[in-house]
């Protein structure tokens, strides 16, 4: 769109932003005084200027939306823990107040694993740039990707359902047990299995919940629609987008989605946009694309967690013909 813009519009702009000379001021004043319509036009423009003092970009609004989601999750978690603690304390105080000595002796002699410890949670996280592996009490092996956390209740874990909360990405090798189903819970959905191998990815800042099944079978449930569940067969990848409320299932090469366990990420036909999301996670940095168009550049290849950032950037620079500039944990990419 070509905008025709006349001198008076320019003059109004200069005046409002205080960029006028005294002569120009005079000229504008006489223009304004010459008609009511001019006066209104000037005032309207000034009004727009006065009210644009606080700018709120689309990116900031989006960011705030994620903050709300994170606050809700955090609040729910602390509520669950608090209410359990409170309940147990009140019950203990009320029930055990008088016969406390009996209770304690009974507690230790009869039932050493009393539910006194019911509210103990175990939390395992991977620091930025690292992958952790742990073995859960039931023998299940879990690899936890960088910046991710799993939580489970130490006392309830092996009772009837094996429940694990996940924030981020993890790979599960669940030891088989038909009596006690295994459940991975994320803010957007959950995975129910008895014994299989699969990868789950659900970072809080994204609106996606993603599962790749390597072996066995799993059942997926989505929190937004609890009636809906879905079975996967090995080699399938399901991505649930909570924003669009859509599920996409594709046949994939599962190795790509679990290669991070060995500290490597394999990309096949990934865009630069996909790539920088991973690199931001590994190196705890922020990327900015100076030209938005370069985000669509496609890659194929491998990155290792052990390489340093410069190595990774040099690789990108060579293949995509880009320049990079690092400053305070921020990397700017631009066209050569």
């Amino acid at each position: 769109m070509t905008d025709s813009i006349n001198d008076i519009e320019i003059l109004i702009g200069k005046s409002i932003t205080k960029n006028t000379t005294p002569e120009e001021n005079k000229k504008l004043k006489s223009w304004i005084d010459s008609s009511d319509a001019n006066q209104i036009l000037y005032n309207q423009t000034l009004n727009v200027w006065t009210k644009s003092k606080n700018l709120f970009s689309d990116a900031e609004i989006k960011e705030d939306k994620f903050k709300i989601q994170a606050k809700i999750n955090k609040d729910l978690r602390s509520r669950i823990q608090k209410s359990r603690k409170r309940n147990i304390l009140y019950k203990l105080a009320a029930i055990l107040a008088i016969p406390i000595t009996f209770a304690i002796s009974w507690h230790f002699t009869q039932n050493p694993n009393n539910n006194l410890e019911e509210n103990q949670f175990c939390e395992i996280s991977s620091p930025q740039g690292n992958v952790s592996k742990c073995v859960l009490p039931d023998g299940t092996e879990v690899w936890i990707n960088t910046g991710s956390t799993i939580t489970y209740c130490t006392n309830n874990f092996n009772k009837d359902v094996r429940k694990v909360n996940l924030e981020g990405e993890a790979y599960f090798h669940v030891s088989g047990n038909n009596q006690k189903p295994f459940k991975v819970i994320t803010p957007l959905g959950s995975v129910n299995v008895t014994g299989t191998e699969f990868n789950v990815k659900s970072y809080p800042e994204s609106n996606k919940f993603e599962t790749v099944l390597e072996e066995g079978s799993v059942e997926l449930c989505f929190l937004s629609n609890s009636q809906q569940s879905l079975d996967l067969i090995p080699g399938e990848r399901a991505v649930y987008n909570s924003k669009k409320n859509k599920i996409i299932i594709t046949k994939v090469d599962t190795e790509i989605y679990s290669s991070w366990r060995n500290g490597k990420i394999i990309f096949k036909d990934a865009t630069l946009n996909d790539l920088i999301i991973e690199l931001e996670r590994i190196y705890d940095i922020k990327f900015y694309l100076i030209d938005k168009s370069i985000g669509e550049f496609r890659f194929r290849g491998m990155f290792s967690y052990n390489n340093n950032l410069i190595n990774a950037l040099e690789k990108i620079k060579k293949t995509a013909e880009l320049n990079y500039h690092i400053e305070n944990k921020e990397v700017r990419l631009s066209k050569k």
Partner: protein
Amino acid sequence: MPEIIDQNIFNKIKTGNETAFSELFEKYYSSLCFFCYDYIADMDKARSLVQQVFVDLWIKRKKLNVTQSIKPYMYCAVRNKSIDYIRQHKNTIQINEIIENTQETPFQNLIQEAEINNKINASINQLPEKCREIFILCRIEGLKYKQVAHKLNISVKTVEMQMGIALKKLRENLSNQKSINLFTIFISKKSNFLTG
């Protein structure tokens, strides 16, 4: 009939529908922030208070029993939060002109005001990239035309043109809606132009 649709959103939220919650956010969040700013004169704080209103709404959604439609409900909730905030911080907060004004202006007018602010903000976000950049440098960073030209390595003439275009567009976008009458109120208050 926007009111009926609003009521619908609220019922959906009560049943835990995240899409409805998301819609509510898209529709009102930024306006509510501008509204809150009028009370507490601190944009960062305003954002965090409004976020809290949304969080509370979601967490307490099952207990809520609202007969009015959701828009006035949201604005009331933000107003109450703002007033609480001012009370708690009355020793540290600077009571300035903005805050005093809100105590005299009717609630409905403040809502309209916030919606206009939001509309202008949305128009700024929709300006062509170059135009927007120049506008922000002038408005938010308070640079003179010469400084903007120097910083972006363009001519002062271009800055003048782009600012003229930006202001014209914002003005036109705004006067497309029925807010003309509000301008007239504004005119009577602001007749001391060019003196400052």
